[in-house]
Each structure stands twice: as C-alpha cells, then as structure tokens.
C-alpha cells in the first residue's frame, strides 16, 4: 500500500508498504531514516521513540498505515539549522552516550519532557525515562545530560525545546 505522511516537516509518499509493518520499519528501511533504533520491537526499550502528532510513541508499535496523514518527528528532525539540538549536545558532553543504541529514543523522550516541564526534578526525570532502557551507561550520565540540557535551554534565550 501507499502511505502519505509528514516526517520532520517533509511530505512523503511511501510505496510498497506491507500492511502489517511498523512505522519503525518504514522509517528505517524505506525512508532512509535510520536514527530511530530497533532493539526489541515490543515497546519495552524505547530506542524507537518518535513523536506522532506531538506525543512520543514507540514507532515499533505504530502500524505504518497509522502514520497516514499524521506528523512524525524523529531524532533526525530535532536538529536546528543543521546544528545539534541542546538536548543532543548535552548527551555528548555529559558522556551519556556509549554504544549509542538507546540514545535517539532517550533524546526524543528528554526533548518531550523538557518541553512539558522545563525544570524537572530527579523523580520526574526518572518517571519520564522509565520506558527507555540503556544497557551501557548505568543511567547516571543520562540524568546528568537531562539536567545539563534543562539548564542550557533555560539560559539560552530563544532556544525552544
């Protein structure tokens, strides 16, 4: 089937989509957007997190056909004028990236958190990231990255998450 959707602000017509395939598969294998990672295909790890109409979702559990007419934003779409988003920059600087497999999902989820709540406390950060697993970092550096991103977004005027 054909799926017509908007990804990172660009309209796409994607052909030959299998009716049972996930949005994650369509993004990675048919649209050349491999930023969202496939690690579990069952909603447990969060590495495939993308925005669907402004709400983070596991792309592995969204049917490709459900993206028809909707707006998707992936980690690739968060850069501003080809510059890394402050959340992305903070993950690098805080050492929150080791193998990097969980990172795209964590970045989208953190981006959403800071948009809704610019000053989250640690409990709120943990709750927001409860659906994102990282097997490398032990999470401490990830918490550091979120706090750093929150600080930066707060001080950099005009930087909208």
């Amino acid at each position: 089937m054909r799926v017509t959707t908007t990804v990172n602000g660009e309209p796409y017509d994607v052909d030959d989509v299998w009716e049972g395939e996930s949005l994650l598969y369509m993004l990675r294998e048919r649209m050349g957007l491999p930023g969202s990672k496939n690690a579990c295909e069952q909603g447990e790890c969060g590495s495939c997190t993308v925005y669907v109409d402004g709400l983070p979702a596991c792309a592995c559990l969204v049917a490709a056909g459900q993206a028809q007419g909707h707006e998707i934003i992936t980690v690739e779409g968060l850069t501003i004028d080809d510059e890394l988003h402050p959340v992305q920059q903070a993950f690098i600087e805080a050492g929150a990236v080791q193998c990097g497999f969980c990172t795209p999902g964590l970045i989208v989820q953190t981006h959403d958190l800071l948009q809704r709540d610019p000053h989250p406390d640690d409990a709120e950060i943990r709750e927001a990231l409860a659906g994102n697993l990282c097997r490398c970092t032990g999470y401490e550096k990830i918490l550091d990255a979120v706090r750093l991103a929150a600080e930066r977004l707060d001080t950099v005027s005009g930087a909208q998450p």
Partner: protein
Amino acid sequence: MEFLAPTTWADALAVRQEHPDALALTGGTDVMVEINFDMRRPPALLDLTGVRELSDWSRDGDVVRLGAGVTYTRVIEELGDVLPGLAMAARTVGSPQIRNRGTVGGNLGAASPAGDSHPPLLAGGAEVELASVEGTRTVPIEEFYTGVKQHAGRPDELISAILVRSPSGPQQFSKIGTRNAMVISVSAFGLALHPDEQRIGTGIGSAAPTPRRAVEAESFLSSALDDLGLWESRGALPDSLTREFGDRVKAAASPIDDVRGTAAYRLHSLAVMARRTLTWAWADYAGGIT
C-alpha cells in the same frame, strides 16, 4: 493483509460487518507486538484511530461515557477526579510512550487477566458498550470477561465505549510488580466505596483466569459496615474487619504459578492489598473526601 482505515463510526461498523476476521487496531500496544513477533497474521487490520467518536469522553448526568479509543495519558490528565480508580491504574501502565498510545478499549479488547483497567472498572460497576450495524448493547463488566483473553463481543461487533457512574465515594487501586514502571502486574486490586448505595465494589487482577469481583467479600463488608453504623458515623474501621475483608478477597481468587509469581504469593499479596486499599479509602471517607 489488508489495511482498513475507516474515518467515521458508521463506516467502521460497516467494515466490521464485512470483515469479521479483521483484527481491530487502536493503540497497537498489544496488536503490533503480536504482529512483529509473527504470533498473529490476521487477513486484515481494522485501524480505528481515524474514528474521532471513539476518542471522546463525555458526562451524561451521573454517567461517564469513555470512548474506547481514549488513551491512558488522557485518562490521567483529564479524568483523575472523574474516574479516580481508573486514573490510578492508568498511571501504572507501561511507560509514557505506551500510555500515549494504549487505550482502555484496547485493554478490554485484549481481555488479559493482567490488564490494569479491569480491577477499577469491576470495582466501579462499569458497563461495556458493544456496537454493530445491527445496533448497540451494553454488557455489565463482570459478564464481559468470558475466559482467558476472551470477551463477550461478537466478531461483527466493536467496543464503542465504557460506561461508568461518577463515584459517590473514594476509590483505590494497588498493583504488585517487580519495579515501579513497565511492569505487568503480578497481582492487582481495585476498590470503590459506594456510600450512596452503602455498597463496596472490588476487582481482582492477575489472580484468576479472568479479572473478577470478590463478590462475597463485598457483601460481607457492606453488611458489616451497615451493622456497625459506620456508613453514617464514618468512624474507625476495626482491624479485625479489614483483616477479615482481606482474607475474603483472597478466597475469591484462583491464581496460578507462573514466571511473574507463585499462586501463594498472589493470594498473600491480594489479602494485603485489599486490607491496605480499604484502609486508605476509608481514611478518605472518614476525612470527608469523596
């Protein structure tokens, strides 16, 4: 496979009638796991996310009508006061990403004994609205679950809504799991005080082939509260009463041993959760919080 995506409720019912073997799809948080893992290959998917009517909720006098496609995130954000027990349960579901897509209607459609919506819906005395081109009917929630992952909906029907009375008293929900997030319950319990009817509502999760009420425990407690004049006095509950209630809730369960927990642990935890949720709810009632 076909992908059927009606955009009106009338079309959805017509498509359902034509394709009784199509698998309904809302949030996809159960369906897509099964498809990704090749556990299911339905001839068609019937995507209901384009049907706006399903994602609305409304209040008609005393009754809240929750569309089958309302997500957990919206239950938490919009219905915390209106359906407190269900909102408490919704907060424990999966992760933010799962709650943004997963729906109460999907939880009913899956009819898993471990589904977290079931205990509060049982305790609250909900009804499930089922619809087909022939018409609409409502089924009392305790008659909805017909077996392990089986429910009373026919192949030509869809779940349109859940009907729940606004609470007349406090509600509580408790769930046991191995961590605080992303966890299928080992056991769960929902409790509702219905002071207007001087009645107690209960719902047991993950401790029987289907979600179920603890009917005998409900009537035991309701009449004990009556005998002691506690509905009116809002006085302290005797410890012996909360303990007896816990034991009777436990007696209503018939759990199994599985990877998430043993039957013995499930029984023990149910008695504890029943006692605790009653204590919490009664403290609210005594303090005049409804």
